[in-house]
């Protein structure tokens, strides 16, 4: 079973750890915005009860510097590149997509529509996808928040708006307090919660969206092992992205692939086959 393994956006710097990026099927960049951003003040990370909280705040050099000096260096790594873009209005998304549209190095654009650590755009997720679609012909993956009342309905809407795939899911907003002082442990208070505890939530989103739309899905959320990858494929993902596990173990992509290989010996040979197990025959007959 050949499952593409990516990194979750913001969970690897391919220029400082190219040997790790080289072990991925595609490298997803940290989110880039129209203007440079220094990001949020520290402390930016905390661990609490099996969750990691982060509040980085989209630190990035801006789309112009990214396009002219970062992207060419990434291209030299020889790994397919997905560029994550974000912003604070539909015109921000449009600006980034337009800039990337004629850059061959950017194979896919992932729309970060769900960062819990910065202000949200006033427009709806669907409007942001529409604006992005109008600015580029590149494949667009919509990265959605698990904190969505009806994610299957949202998936249908972003598909109608022109998304070519879904990245499910982003982090959930969380808060950790210092036990001695009861002050928030992160400088800005809340942060995005990730790690294995996010996995069942992400799986539920993938499962629901796989039944709702025909789009390919990148499963993201607490993937720690090959067995977790199989869960995501069974739920309906066609690829997975590694987040928190990369922080704990830069060798995790290779380890997880080895574990997937061993799963083959348990008799799992195709994605369709294991999806049938999770979804029943009705789903399998659609694929």
């Amino acid at each position, binding site marked *: 079973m050949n499952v593409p393994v990516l990194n979750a956006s*913001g*969970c*690897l*710097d391919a*220029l*400082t*750890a*190219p*040997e*790790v990026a080289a072990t991925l099927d595609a490298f997803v960049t*940290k989110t880039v915005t129209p203007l440079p951003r*220094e*990001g949020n*003040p*520290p*402390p*930016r*990370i*905390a*661990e609490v009860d*099996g*969750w*990691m909280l*982060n509040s*980085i705040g989209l*630190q990035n050099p801006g789309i112009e510097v990214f396009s002219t000096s970062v992207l060419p260096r990434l291209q030299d790594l020889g790994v397919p590149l997905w560029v994550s873009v974000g912003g604070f209005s539909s015109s921000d998304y449009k600006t980034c997509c337009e800039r990337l549209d004629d850059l061959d190095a950017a194979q896919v654009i992932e729309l970060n529509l769900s960062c819990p650590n910065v202000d949200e755009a006033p427009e709806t997720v669907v409007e942001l996808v529409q604006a992005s679609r109008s600015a580029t012909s590149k494949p667009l993956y919509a990265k959605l928040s698990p904190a969505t009342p009806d994610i299957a309905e949202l998936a249908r809407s972003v598909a109608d708006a022109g998304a070519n795939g879904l990245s499910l899911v982003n982090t959930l907003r969380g808060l950790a307090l210092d036990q001695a002082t009861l002050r928030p442990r992160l400088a800005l208070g809340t942060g995005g919660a990730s*790690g*294995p505890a996010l996995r069942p939530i992400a799986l539920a989103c993938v499962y629901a969206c796989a039944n709702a739309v025909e789009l390919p899905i990148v499963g993201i959320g607490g993937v720690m092992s090959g067995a977790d990858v199989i869960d995501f494929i069974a739920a309906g993902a066609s690829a997975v992205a590694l987040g*928190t596990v*990369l*922080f*704990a*173990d*830069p*060798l995790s992509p*290779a*380890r997880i692939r*080895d574990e997937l290989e061993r799963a083959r010996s348990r008799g799992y040979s195709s994605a369709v086959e294991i999806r049938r197990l999770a979804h029943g025959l009705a789903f399998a007959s659609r694929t």
Partner: protein
Amino acid sequence: MKGQHAVLGSGSSQTQVLGTARRERLTVVDNEAVGPYVLLRLERSGMEPGVPGQFFMLEAPGQLLPRPMSLCLAPPGELAFLLEPIGPGTRALAALAPQERIYVLGPLGNGFDLAVERPVLVAGGIGLAPMPYLSEALGGPPALLGFRSERHAEAARLLPGAEVVVEPRLVTELLPGEPSDILACGPEPMLEAVRELAPSAQLAWEAPMACGYGACYGCVVEVEGRYIRLCIEGPVL
């Protein structure tokens, strides 16, 4: 990953932070109490000790993320880390028993510049951690240590010959008047005070860190209005 040993990259490019680092599962030799601190001794296996002031990411059993620790001592065949058990991660590390094994990644980051003529080591509290290995590399220069209590000051035995003060006295009171090359590690207010008195001092900073190799952007510190990653640019700045 095949087996427990893996070399990360070829080290062919200076931009490859993991170029010289390895990730291995090391066996605990012992965990010794040093005052309220703990000296965690691990079998070295194929790991390099690196430059004093560099750090390692230590798997903390039961925790999602590893914890960054600078190397305290590098006796033959071992790597030893001085910990202060104050949170779930450091308590899990302090509770390790001989023969247990943990994954260790390193050495990482930039250590101290050892090309100094008149070195003086300055440390506060757990900032003592990198000093014994640094002292050895520099041939036992003068050292000044400050602790918050007599019990904490018991850890000074890791650096024989050091001058020791206990609060309310501060280690900065001991800084020499004559020109010297200060290499310091300790709590942020102490480092700020050292920098005030000795602007050219080499300072080893600390920050919450998820990865240790530049992936997460979690460990930034502000330098001249920019946020830089301590794991890549530091921890010695």
